[in-house]
C-alpha cells in the first residue's frame, strides 16, 4: 500500500436494503474519531447517507453531461448523425433532427462527425454534488436528477472530483449502488478493497454470489459483512467458508439498530458490539491491502 495514496473502501451488496448505508455511514463516522475521513455517497439514484450526517454545507455544484444540440440553420439533413448514433439518441424524423437526451452517452461522434458542425455539444444538467463539512468527516453526496436514467457518468464525475480535490484525505469510504451492473462497477472501480454487506437469507446469498463474481471480474479484494445475523440460516457463512471469502463481521439482528436507523441516527457510538465490529473490519482491511 502506497502511504501517499488514500485507502479507498467501497461498500456494495448486490441485493438492496442489506445495510450498505448503515454500514458506510457508521464506518466513516467511527473512523473520523481518529483521523480525517471522507464518505462519498455514490448511490446516486437513491442517496440516503445525508440522513445520517450532520454538518454544514460547504459547496453544491451542479453536474452536467454533454449532449448535442441541433442547429437547424446549419443542418443539411445528410443523415450522418442519425446513422452514427448507436443509441438511437439522435434520430432524423423527416426534416427534423430529434435528440433524446436520456439515451445520449456523450460519445461526441454525431457532433464531431457532422460535416457542417450542426450538432454542437452543450451542457445538460444531470445531477449535483454536495460537500458537507462535519469536522473530521467530509461527506460528499452525489445525486442524480429525477428523470435522468444514467447513473454512470455522474459516478465517474464524482470520482474525478474526489481524486482532484480530496486526495489528501487518507481514508475514503464509498457507499455504492445495489445490483451487479454498470453503476456498481463504476462506483467500485477505484476501490482498494470492497466490503460486501449481505443478509443471511436465500436472497442475500444469491445476490452475494453475483456481487462476488462482479468484484472478481474487476479484480477487487472483497470481504463480507453479514448484517441481521440470526435471521434466516447459515448458508451465507457456509458459502463464504467454501469460497474462501473472509467474513469481516457479523452484525446481529437487533430491533434497536433498526429503530435508530429508521430515525436517521448513527449507532457506532451507541451500541458496543457495533463499535467492536467496525474496529475488526478496519483492521482486517488494513491487513488485506
Amino acid at each position, binding site marked *: 500500500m502506497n502511504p501517499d495514496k488514500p485507502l479507498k473502501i467501497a461498500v456494495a451488496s448486490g441485493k438492496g*436494503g442489506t445495510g450498505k448505508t448503515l454500514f458506510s455511514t457508521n464506518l466513516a463516522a467511527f473512523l473520523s474519531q481518529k483521523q480525517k475521513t471522507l464518505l462519498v455517497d455514490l448511490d446516486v*439514484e437513491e442517496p440516503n447517507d445525508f440522513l445520517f450526517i450532520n454538518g454544514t454545507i460547504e459547496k453544491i455544484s451542479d453536474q452536467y453531461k454533454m449532449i448535442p444540440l441541433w442547429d437547424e440553420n446549419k443542418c443539411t439533413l445528410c443523415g450522418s448523425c442519425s446513422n452514427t448514433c*448507436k443509441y438511437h439518441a439522435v434520430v432524423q424524423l423527416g426534416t427534423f433532427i430529434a435528440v433524446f437526451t436520456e439515451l445520449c452517452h456523450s460519445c*461526441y*461522434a454525431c457532433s464531431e462527425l457532422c460535416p457542417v458542425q450542426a450538432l454542437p455539444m452543450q451542457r445538460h444538467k444531470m445531477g449535483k454534488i454536495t460537500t458537507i463539512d462535519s469536522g473530521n468527516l467530509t461527506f460528499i453526496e452525489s445525486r*442524480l436528477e429525477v428523470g435522468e436514467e444514467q447513473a454512470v457518468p455522474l459516478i465517474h464525475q464524482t470520482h474525478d472530483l474526489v481524486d482532484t480535490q480530496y486526495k489528501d484525505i487518507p481514508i475514503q469510504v464509498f457507499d455504492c449502488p445495489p445490483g451487479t451492473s454498470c453503476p456498481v462497477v463504476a462506483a467500485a472501480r477505484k476501490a482498494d478493497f470492497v466490503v460486501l454487506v449481505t443478509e443471511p437469507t436465500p436472497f442475500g446469498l444469491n445476490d452475494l454470489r453475483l456481487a462476488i463474481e462482479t468484484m472478481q471480474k*474487476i479484480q477487487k479484494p472483497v470481504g463480507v459483512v453479514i448484517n441481521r445475523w440470526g435471521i434466516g440460516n447459515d448458508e451465507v457463512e457456509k458459502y463464504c467458508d467454501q469460497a474462501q471469502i473472509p467474513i469481516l463481521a457479523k452484525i446481529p439482528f437487533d430491533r434497536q439498530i433498526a429503530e435508530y*436507523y429508521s430515525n436517521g441516527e448513527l449507532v457506532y457510538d451507541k451500541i458496543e458490539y457495533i463499535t467492536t465490529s467496525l474496529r475488526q473490519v478496519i483492521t482486517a482491511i488494513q491487513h488485506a491491502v
Partner: protein
Amino acid sequence: MQSNNIHEIVVLSGKGGTGKTSLTASLAVLAGNDAVIADCDVDAANMHLLLRPDFGETFEFYSGELAVINQDLCNQCGTCAEVCRFHAIPQDKNQYQINALDCEGCGYCEKVCPTHAITMQERRSGSVYISKTKVGSTMVHARLDIAAENSGKLVAKVKNDAKAIALAGNKHFIIVDGSPGIGCPVVSSLAGANYVILVTEPTMSGLHDLKRVHAVIERFRIKSGCIINKYDLNKEQTAEIKCFLREEQIDHLADIPYDSIFSEAMIEEKTIVEIESPLKQLVGSIWEKVKEQLTRKN
C-alpha cells in the same frame, strides 16, 4: 383492442430490501395461471427462489456493441484513443487495446480509423428464460451477465416477451417485479404499466426513496398504490408516509407488521401466502384491492 384486457402491474420500491420481491411473488401465487410473471430486477433477480420456475427455454440476449481492433491492420496512429470519450482504448506494450469494461459501443473509433482496423461486434449481455412456475403460470426472467451494461434493454425484452405471452394466452394480468432505484431499468419497467405497487418501510430512507421513485412514476401518469411493510418498526415514520400518500393521492393498500415469516418462508422456498399466518389474509386483501383499482373506471 385486445391488449386493453391485460392489466400490467409493476412493483417498485426505490429503496431496496423493503420486501418488494416477497410481496410480488405472493401476488403471483394468488393470481395463479391468470397472470404472466416478469422478473425485471435483472441484475439481482430473486423471484425464481420463491416461484421455482423450470428454466424451460433459454435465449441469449445480445445488446449493444463492442469495438474490436485487428492488430494486423492497426498502424498505431492513436486516432481511436483520441476520440474515445470513455478512455476505453489504452495503449499497452505498444498496442492499442479495447478495454471491454469501459467500451460503451458508440462506434466513434470505427468511423475514424484510417486503416479500417476496428470493427464493431454484437455483444452478449445476458440470458432470458421463459419458464413455468410452481403454480403453473408462465414467468419471463433474465440474468444480466456479470458487470454488463444495457440492463434497461434487457428489462424491455423481458417485458415485451411477457406481454406477447399474456396476449397469446388471453391472460388478464402481467405482474412485474422491478428493480430498486430510479434509473434506466426502472424507467424501462414502467413502459406500458397500468398500475404501480410501491413497497416501502417506515424509515427516513424508505420515505426519501419512495418520493423519488414516485416522482418518476408521475412523469408517466400511472396510478399507484402503496404497501407500508414493517409499519410497526417506527409509527411516526409510518404516519409521515401516510401523510405523503394522501397528499399525492396514492392508494394506501396495506400496513404489514414486521414478521419473521418473510425470511422463514424464503428459506422454505415459499411465498408468504403459502404459509398459514395472519399475513396470508392481509396479502390476499391487497390483491383484491389492486384488482378493484384496475377494473374501476376512472
